Every structure is written in C-alpha cells, then in structure tokens.
C-alpha cells in the first residue's frame, strides 16, 4: 500500500518509487510474455503509472516516460534497442504517454480531494469536540457558581452583621469567577474563528450595559463617559459590551480606588474609536504588547486576575478587523485605544420611508 496521505510535493523517494514500479511491471511483463500480447504489456504499464501517481504528479509523469522507454526497449521489435522497426509503434508510445500522464494527473487530483475532505472533516470534528467540551465545562462550573451565589444571598437576608461581610465577599467572588468563566468562553469563541455578528449599534448603549453589569465590581468608582455625536459602531453587540466591560474592569483593577476612569468614544473616518483611560501607574515600558497576551499578569494589580480580559479584548478587536493598543496618558496613567473599522458603509440614521410610513399609521 502506498502512503495514505501522499505529500503534496513529492520527495526523491517518490521518483525512486515510480522507477521501481515501472521496473516491477517490466519484470512481470517479461515473466508472462509467453502468454501475453503487446496490448497486455501496455496495460501493465498503465497500471504501473496509476500506482506511481499516488506518490505525486512528478513521479506519475516519470513513470509514464519510463514506461514508454521500457516498453520500447524490452517488448517492441527490435528488442534491446530504442529503435522502432514499425513506425506505428511511435503512435502507440505517444498515446501511452498521454494516457499515462492523464491518469497520473487524475489520480493526483483525486488524492488531493480526498485529503482535503479528510482535513475538513478533521477540522469540523475538532471544532465540535471543542465546543461540546466547553459547553459541558461551562455548565458544570456555572451550576455550582449559581448555587453558591443563590445560597449566599439567601443567607444574607437573615444573617447578623458579623456574617454580612463574609457573605458579601462570597457573592462578589462568585461573580468574579463568573466573569472569568465568561472571558474563558469568549476567548475560545473568538480564537475559534467564529465570525462576529456585526450590526450598527450606538456605542452609548454598550457602555451603559457594561457599566450596569460591572456596577458591583466598580464599587462606586467614578466613570466619566464622553461619547461624541451619538457615535455608532459596526460590531457584534454582545462582544462589544464584553470589550468595553473588560477594559473598564481592567482599569478598575489596576488603579488605586477613587481615581477616575474615562470612557471616550468618537468616529474617525470609517471607524469607531473607543478609549478607556485611567490615572493609575500606567503600563510598564516594554509591556505595551505583552499586556494583550493570554495569561499575562501585571505586577501591580490590586485584584489578581487570570490575565484573560485584555487578551479577549484583542481577540474581539481582531475579529472585527480592528486594532487595540495602549499608551502612556499625558499627566499619568494609561490609555487603551480600540479601533473598530466599519464592515459596511454607515447607513442613514432614520428609518427608511416605508418603515416611517407604517409607523405613522
């Protein structure tokens, strides 16, 4: 049996293999020559070409050429020379070579299709296993988390002051774990290459939803929001909310309590620019790229993280064909800037006439 998956570019082994197959066909042909006609010998070489073509197109062509030469040398009169007594055999050689080359090409194409199908199947199966594993893991982790949060809030209703603080901590930590889990799932989704579902969204709406979700984690921290001209962005609203939430959460985590966080949004050409700026210690020189790597953890985090939040932000920005960067903020602190280019031209803001007419009825 020839290798199941021949490499697309044949190595020298392929050519040696092709020569060996033609030699073998010649030997078999010689052994059977008493009982076989010239047509049978030609068929034998066709078989050799098909087999050799499994090693690639080059070896297939070599086998076709060698077959013509061997057929002429060994079987066609005068034997033992490359001379041809009957000129009709020249035509036979040409047909043999062309048929051999065609068979070789078809075989190679068939092999390639087969390989592509197998690879696609393998990819699909990997994706399937990955997503079912993730949903199983997330379900298995979420349920205990939901029970912990639920039970702790139930106990909190009747607990005395002494226990209150402990129960608050349990609830907060369970929520944090839940955010980590969400980022873990988002990281796999974004890395898995799932296309974002882009829509035109007022960024204000995403900022509002993110700040509402982070309400407890922000612990009353001042977040100033400045959105220029009701800026719209063309992005997946669920991923967009996560992106903004992660940037704000990151700023809150790495800056002293009481320092303000600024969220600024504007449009610039055919793109939306989101900035989250803080007054913390800033990003250490040389770490400007590394902060976006998975599992990177800074030295001065007030609350330890797993190092997924910013990596997910980068994944989301890239999935939208955008960029993310961090730089020092004039006057101290860091500015994270995300650029989300429009995936389609900005539409007219008002409802089309048909919709407006219907609404006015």
């Amino acid at each position, binding site marked *: 049996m020839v290798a199941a998956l021949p490499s697309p570019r044949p190595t020298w082994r392929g050519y040696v293999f092709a020569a060996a197959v033609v030699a073998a066909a010649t030997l078999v042909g010689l052994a059977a020559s008493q009982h076989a006609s010239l047509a049978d010998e030609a068929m034998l070489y066709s078989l050799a070409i098909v087999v050799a073509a499994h090693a690639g197109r080059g070896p297939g062509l070599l086998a076709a050429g060698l077959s013509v030469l061997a057929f002429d040398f060994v079987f066609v009169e005068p034997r033992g020379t490359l001379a041809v007594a009957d000129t009709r055999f020249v035509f036979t050689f040409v047909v043999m070579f062309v048929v051999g080359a065609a068979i070789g090409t078809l075989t190679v194409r068939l092999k390639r299709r087969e390989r592509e199908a197998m690879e696609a199947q393998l990819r699909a199966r990997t994706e399937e296993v990955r997503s079912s594993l993730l949903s199983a893991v997330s379900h298995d982790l979420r349920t205990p988390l939901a029970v912990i949060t*639920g039970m702790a*809030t139930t106990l909190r209703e*009747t607990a005395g002051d002494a226990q209150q603080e402990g129960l608050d901590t349990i609830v907060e930590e369970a929520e944090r774990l839940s955010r980590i889990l969400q980022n873990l799932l988002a990281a796999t989704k974004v890395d898995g290459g799932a296309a974002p579902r882009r829509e035109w*969204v*007022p960024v*204000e709406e995403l900022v*509002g939803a993110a700040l509402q979700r982070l309400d407890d984690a922000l612990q009353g921290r001042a977040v100033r929001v400045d959105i220029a001209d009701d800026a719209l962005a063309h992005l997946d609203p*669920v991923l967009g909310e996560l992106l903004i939430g992660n940037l704000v959460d990151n700023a809150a985590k790495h800056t002293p309590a009481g320092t303000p966080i600024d969220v600024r949004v504007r449009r610039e050409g055919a793109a939306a620019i989101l900035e989250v700026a803080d007054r913390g210690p800033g990003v250490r020189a040389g770490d400007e790229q590394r902060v976006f790597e998975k599992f990177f953890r800074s030295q001065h985090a007030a609350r330890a993280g797993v190092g997924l939040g910013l990596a997910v932000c980068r994944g989301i920005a890239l999935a939208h064909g955008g960029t993310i960067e961090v730089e020092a903020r004039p006057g101290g602190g860091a500015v994270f800037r995300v650029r989300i280019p429009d995936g389609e031209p900005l539409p007219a803001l*008002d*409802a089309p006439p048909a919709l407006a007419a219907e609404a006015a009825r």
Partner: protein
Amino acid sequence: MTAGDVVLVIEDETAMRRFLAQALGSHGFKVIEAGTCAQAVALATEARPAVILLDLGLPDGDGLELLRTLREWSTTPVIVLSARDREDDKVQALDAGADDYLTKPFGVSELLARIRVALRHARAQTVTEDPVIAIGPIRIDQARHEVTVAEAPVHLTPIEFRLLAFLARHAGKVLTHRQLLHEVWGPRSTQHTQYLRVHMAALRKKLETDPARPRWLTTEPGVGYRLRDE
C-alpha cells in the same frame, strides 16, 4: 405577591432546586419541583402554579420544546433560567412565549423582583388598563399622547411614543428586539434592529438624566430592552 402562591421549579440540578425552594419558601411561596420535562407537564396541569421557573438546559428534552407545549394551553408566566453566553436561547424562549429570564448566577433579590413583575402582569390582564402609567419620574398619558419627566413635558416623536408606551405597558419585563419591532414598525420590519437601537438611544436621551448610565431604559445585550419599574 400573595402568600401561598405556587411556584413550579423545573430544574435538573438538585442543588439548584434546593436553593430555589429555600429562597422562595422563606418568602412565603409554596414550591413544587420537577426534574424532568415529563414531570413538569404533569405538575403544571395538576398544581396550577402561579409562576413557572424553567431551566433551559434540561437533560430529557429541550426546555424550549416544553415551553412551546405549555404555551399551547397555559398562560402561566414562565421565567427561564439560562447561562450568560446563551443569548440566542433566551431570545428564542422569549419569542416562544416566556415572560422573562434570569442569567445564572443570580441572587435572591433579582429572583424575587422577576417573579413580582411576572405575577403583576399576569394579574393585570384581568383589570382594565389605566391610560396613565407612572414609572419613577416618568408619566405616560396614553390617551393624550403626553409624556412628562419630573413634571416637565417631553416632546417625543410618534415612534418614540409608541416604543415607550409599549415598554411601559410591560414595565419591568424584558422585551426582545423582535417584539419591539413587531409592535412599533409592524410584522414586516422585525429585521431592522438598527433603527430600533437608534430610536431607543433618542428616547434615553430625552428621558434619562445620564443616558450612558440609564436608570430606567436598560439594555440587555443580545436580547432586547427593559423599562425598569423599581
């Protein structure tokens, strides 16, 4: 809410059922539990619950299928329990007739608030509707098409008014993009989410003190909007 209201909990995880039973029991509800779809259908028929809590990830069948079956003969409010990254499931469940949802993990106060809203809406169906709805500082006169915020009149476009009135009639409840588009723009417009978003933004600007941190008109990412009423 009335003491002794029956809540049917359809949830396969024992620990989760225990939490819900304890939390609701201590607030005067009578809790009955089902771990499978088959049990759930039987209990929903016999026990006539006031509210149903349904986990969408049941082992012996699709929670969504169960919801559709229930909706064939019952208008009992259904609140679905689901994970955060399952927005599509939530939207499907809401469009299939669920009244609201809770994202795991959730606390007791969230749970009780959702149940309160669901019970109130279920009971309000039998009462004649007051043309004036007041939510916080917002007052909506549906007969006169007038809206005031803290006594000050606010001018709304016809679309904005219809959006707000629909949200206010379902105050406290989440409404999906599809439900809002269907109500305000008509059945052929349920794909035009971007117009809905732009009009919601305009409405927030007119009604909220800080539109970037809305107190009343909140966004449920990937699902829809909610006009909070408490």
